[in-house]
């Protein structure tokens, strides 16, 4: 068993539903997900595919009317769903932390940057003096390459640019050296050059500390660059999971294939028109009886099998269940590729 990598996070059959006046929306539908120590896992999918709901479910921060209905979230072997709120408060920020998508609204506008970094440090390290926390906070700001860190401690969020704020967010997230960081679209709101800088800083920090990361994004370029593994989410399910190289080379699920084909690739010839996926994702309140991707599928649209029954997760990988896809034609499609 020594060769088996160690789990940081193991999500089992997690189901999160939003009970609203307009019906029940299962944003996360019986999802299982494994993250190993020090590995970077990307979760990609369209808006509304349940990526953020999954992230908040892992942290136990789904807000009403949302609720975790069933399943387990095992973090370092402990099921977070069974913990009391006070116990969760000692896990959040110390074992798992969050980087939020919009740096403009993710910091309290009326508190200094320094206070907001120190808050997490002081919370998880009883007996730490304010001065010591401050010293550590300055170090963290230096780690994320905020210039003149000591002076910037007393600045307010509005005095920072978007990229600088996202660096502060990263500093807050790594403050207590968590085992897992969930980064929900960490660079979406930034321009491309800032995006690259922030991502570089983030990557070197988590690699050097051996921190596992769940990177939620719809940017496949970032996934290719940053992640070891990828999960593709569609309508609340993980429809394909593989290591990054395999997924980009041999996408099995038609949805993944469509996603990859809708990204412009300078290295490949085009006839001028970019591929796009027809239609819209289904409403979670009224999911089709069969495969949820069937109405938009390049492979199975109109096929009775796809319309009538939900596909099972199929392993297509050579090595132990490393490449999974939720498609009736997973095997055929995989064989056709190789």
């Amino acid at each position, binding site marked *: 068993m020594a060769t088996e990598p160690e789990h940081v996070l193991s999500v089992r059959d997690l189901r999160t539903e939003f009970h609203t006046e307009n019906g029940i929306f299962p944003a996360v539908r019986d999802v299982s997900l494994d993250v190993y120590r020090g590995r970077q896992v990307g979760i990609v999918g369209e808006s509304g595919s349940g990526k953020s709901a999954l992230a*908040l479910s892992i*942290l136990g*921060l789904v*807000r*009403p*009317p949302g609720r975790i209905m069933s399943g387990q979230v095992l973090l370092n072997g402990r099921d977070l769903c069974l913990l009391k*709120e*006070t116990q*969760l*408060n*000692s*896990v*959040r*920020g*110390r074992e798992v*932390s*969050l980087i*939020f*998508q*919009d740096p403009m*609204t*993710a*910091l*309290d*506008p*009326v*508190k*200094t940057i320094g206070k907001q970094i120190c*808050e*997490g440090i002081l*919370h*998880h390290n009883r007996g730490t003096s304010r001065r010591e926390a401050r010293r550590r906070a300055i170090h963290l700001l230096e780690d994320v390459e905020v210039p003149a860190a000591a002076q910037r401690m007393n600045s*307010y969020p*509005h005095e920072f640019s978007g990229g600088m704020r996202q660096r502060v*967010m990263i500093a*807050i997230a790594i*403050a207590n050296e968590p085992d897992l960081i969930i980064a929900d679209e960490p660079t979406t709101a930034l321009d491309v050059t800032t995006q690259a800088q922030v991502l570089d800083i983030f990557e070197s920090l988590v690699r050097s500390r051996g921190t596992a990361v769940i990177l939620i994004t719809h940017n496949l370029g970032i996934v290719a660059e940053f992640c070891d593994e990828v999960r593709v989410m569609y309508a609340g399910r993980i429809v394909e999971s593989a290591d990054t190289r395999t997924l980009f080379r041999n996408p099995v699920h038609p949805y993944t294939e469509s996603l990859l084909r809708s990204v412009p690739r300078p290295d490949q010839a085009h006839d001028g028109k970019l591929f796009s996926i027809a239609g819209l994702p289904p409403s979670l309140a009224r999911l089709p009886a069969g495969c949820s991707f069937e109405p938009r599928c390049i492979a199975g649209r109109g096929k009775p099998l796809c319309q009538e029954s939900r596909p099972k997760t199929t392993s297509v990988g050579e090595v132990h269940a490393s490449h999974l896809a939720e498609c009736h034609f997973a095997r055929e499609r995989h064989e056709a590729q190789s």
Partner: protein
Amino acid sequence: MVHSILSRLSGSLAAIIGASAIAFLFLRVLPGNPARLIVGPLASEETLHAQMERMGLHEPIYVQYWRYMRDFVTGDWGFSYGAGQPVLVQFQLRFPASIELGIYAFIFAFLAAVVLALLATYRHRPVMDATVRMLSIFGMGMPPFWLALILLVVFHEALGMFPGPGAQLSRALTPPPEVTRLLTIDALIAGELRTFANAFQHLVLPAIALGMLPFGYLVRLLRANLLDVRNEPFILVVRSKGIGYWAATVRHALPNAFLPTLTASGMIFAQLLGGSVLVEKVFNWPGIGSLVVDSILRKDFAVVQAFIIVSAVLYVFINGLVDLLYGIIDPRVRG
């Protein structure tokens, strides 16, 4: 910085002058001759004219205004013929009672609004939320004088928990030496705790009656702001650090929710300090509100005019205070 202070000060001055000018003009234009009221209906035309001469009523209105303002800033607020006293003396006698009542009414309204808004937005509890919303509507819709009567009937007559109307202090107690002229504060300064407690008891019912309406308004505002702020991503980020619900609410949500209510609070506070006619009447409170109404009925110009100017100064002053507070609470305003 200097420029912004100067422009603000000149704006304040303009507001005060404008309010005083309009008040002056309206009161002169209204029918009825104040000199006639003083000399009585049976006095001859000659006596009337002599009185008008003495009061300067025959002069052009801008001269009257100029003279009035000149005297006002030097502390001569005119003479109240109705009361037979200088206006300034009347104000010194009646204003402190209104200010004290206003302060306590505001404290009640503000504290109750904060507590109930926090309860209403705590987790997802529709019953509590609906109750608070009902209280808010109740507070805003209830006529204060009627609430005052109900409070008196229940807590004074039936339960005997609080003293009745007609006094700020029980007769058995001697008032503390005058420092601020606010009874509770003066009692504390003199170290007379029993006097403080007694004065406070006298304040409870009128303060609640007066504070109910602003409470209803503030709790509504705060509740909505808290719900908005709670949906801000930064609250989620705070929670993801491991900070508990209440700590996150008190440390982060509440200060942000206060910001939009600050201006309204300032306005409410200024209004409460200016006294309330109906509540003062019901509790027989020796405040400025009832004095002003009596003076209006008597056409006692000097009192009404002074009141309007003092109110304008009060509003301007408290608005300035609010601006200052914004600078302290909201770093984005400091600039």
